[in-house]
């Protein structure tokens, strides 16, 4: 029973890291980036390539996935995304989904379309069990690792946005780019950094998730729905909203599959529809917020 909760939390944490970048670009920068999953996929493939072809240790792969995908995000922001900021939202959606399809086709061409396997290091592949019977808690070490890492990331992100000068600049730049620019804030650089960090997080999520979510070229499309659920249910005005939404989604998904296997993934969508009917603006949106 508790094991199910544990698995659900790990799954939710993973979804949060994957989707938080989208929440940032959507909520703070008002840009609908449906190609977000492509960055996650890039992180996954970087990890697989580094580990299998070059024998780089797993933890370094995670770091490199974050950094390299962040750089890729920065490059694309500068060249492709920036001209799209001022365009209508429909254009943004079409542009970014086109980008996602190109990523799918590109990876298919260069890497082949089969599932990629990640070999975890020994120390992450074990399992610890506490108690027994219905109250037994079985913790896969890898899932525990994901929970700890993602919790730490959340705290860092929250502090970064609410307590640092960069965070306040970002919020100012989003509220009114022209006034912010007039106050001497370099809006372009702020957006560039934000986008890069958001993509980098997606890359990290993809690298972490390759083991649990699977990794093949259709990844961006397969999980796009989940990212969008996290963002729409959680609202985009804070970090905690998407976090709660991701946890809820993760636990509901895992528990649903455990207790009512025949319904499978159906439960998640039902839950989302109900929540959005009840609170169309998202569960955790502050009233009067942007």
């Amino acid at each position, binding site marked *: 029973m508790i094991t199910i909760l544990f698995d659900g939390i790990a799954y939710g944490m993973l979804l949060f890291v994957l989707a938080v970048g989208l929440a940032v670009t959507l909520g703070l920068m008002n840009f609908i980036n449906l190609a977000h999953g492509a960055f996650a996929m890039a992180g996954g493939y970087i990890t697989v390539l580094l580990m299998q072809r070059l024998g780089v240790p797993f933890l370094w792969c995670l770091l490199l996935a974050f950094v390299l995908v962040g750089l890729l995000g920065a490059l694309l922001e500068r060249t492709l995304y920036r001209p799209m900021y001022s365009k209508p939202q429909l254009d943004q959606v079409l542009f970014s989904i086109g980008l996602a399809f190109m990523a799918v086709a590109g990876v298919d061409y260069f890497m082949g379309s089969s*599932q990629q396997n990640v070999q975890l290091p020994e120390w992450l*592949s074990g399992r610890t069990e506490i108690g027994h019977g219905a109250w037994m808690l079985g913790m896969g070490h890898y899932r525990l690792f994901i929970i700890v890492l993602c919790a730490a990331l959340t705290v860092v992100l929250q502090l970064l946005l609410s307590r640092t000068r960069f965070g306040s600049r970002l919020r100012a730049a989003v509220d009114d780019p022209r006034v912010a620019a007039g106050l001497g804030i370099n809006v372009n650089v702020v957006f560039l950094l934000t986008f890069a960090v958001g993509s980098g997080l997606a890359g990290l999520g993809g690298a972490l998730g390759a083991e649990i979510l*699977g990794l093949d070229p259709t990844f961006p499309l397969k999980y796009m729905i989940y990212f969008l659920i996290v963002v729409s249910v959680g609202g985009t005005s804070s970090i905690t909203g998407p976090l709660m939404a991701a946890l809820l989604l993760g636990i509901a998904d*895992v528990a649903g599959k*455990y207790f009512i296997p025949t319904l499978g993934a159906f439960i998640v969508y039902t839950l989302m529809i109900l929540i959005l009917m009840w609170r169309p603006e998202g569960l955790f949106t502050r009233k009067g917020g942007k």
Partner: protein
Amino acid sequence: MKKRVFLSATALVAMSLPSLSALAQSNTFKIGLILPMTGQQASTGRQVEAGVRLYMAQNGGTVAGKKIELIVKDDTSLPDVTKRLAQELVVNDKVNVLAGFGITPSALATAPIATQSKTPEVVMAAATSSITEASPYIVRTSFTLPQVSVALADWAPKNGITKVVTLVSDYGPGIDAEKYFKERLTFNGGRVIDSLRVPLRNPDFAPFLQKVRDENPDALFVFVPSGAGAAVMKQFLERGMGKAGIRLIATGDVTDDDQLNDMGNGALGVVTSHHYSAAHPSAMNKKFVAAFGAANKGMRPNFMAVGGYDGMHVIYEALKKTKGQGGGDALLAAMKGQIFESPRGPIYIDAQTRDIVQNVYLRKVEKVDGQLYNVEFDVIKDVKDPGKSKK
């Protein structure tokens, strides 16, 4: 005047052209090979095509005075695309045989076209039992899931496994596997205490496996399409189910030769039942594996490759038997009842059901020369598809 001569000359040439091409056509024998070359099932397409091409390379491009022409089309595993491609192949390219078909819906979508045009449809991969009943022109050279599932259900009770939970992907072949495994196991005195169906696209098996663990059976029977097998295996280990005394038994799709080596040592000792292993100890198979590797950068053939290889054998032999004359019906008649040795062992095409009859092997994953292989340790001879033998 001149113009008229020119016109009639062109008309003459134009009229003679079709007959020329008809002449050329009668000297070629066209095989339309429809496979998923991109998308989820691409590894199936790659393996089948490599098997087909290897057979052609080994047995020559000309049979009974006809030049074999292979036309490969990619259906990306979408049945409506398969149907359109099959139509084009029959109507425009005038193929003599349709072949390939990575997944069940593709094979079924083509069935009406095969019936209407009286073109033999050689199914080289798809494995749902009912496929061969969809058209009298379908011949199968792969396998059926009931065929391999019942073998495992026969083996399990003899080896201390009586309480089983089944876990299958929720689509045609999965439901076939579940049904026939359960029936046979119950017949043999065993018990299926729960049957779980997972969505086809669901790599996170954690909640399902946790449920299995809590139900604590002797063994977990798994069928998932090749590709998802690695994920099941890993999560099975991660959950410590082996230590809790639950054994993993599966159809050979889970330990697909194409991917087995990447699965790591966790796969060691897993018992599966299937009709082909790259480690099958026959002289013919050793030659086949070596030639296949040499032609494909060291790739290991899997059961899909063998399906393609044997499919070509069936087509070649039918062509020889009909001496290159005769249409679809004659070819079909010559395909029925063929008996021959395949790299997987002796097989034959049942004349009544047009389905394959073959040995099903029980195998255990072992390390041979530093690589993981499915090593065969028992065999059930000449297994007919139980989906039909009941009728």
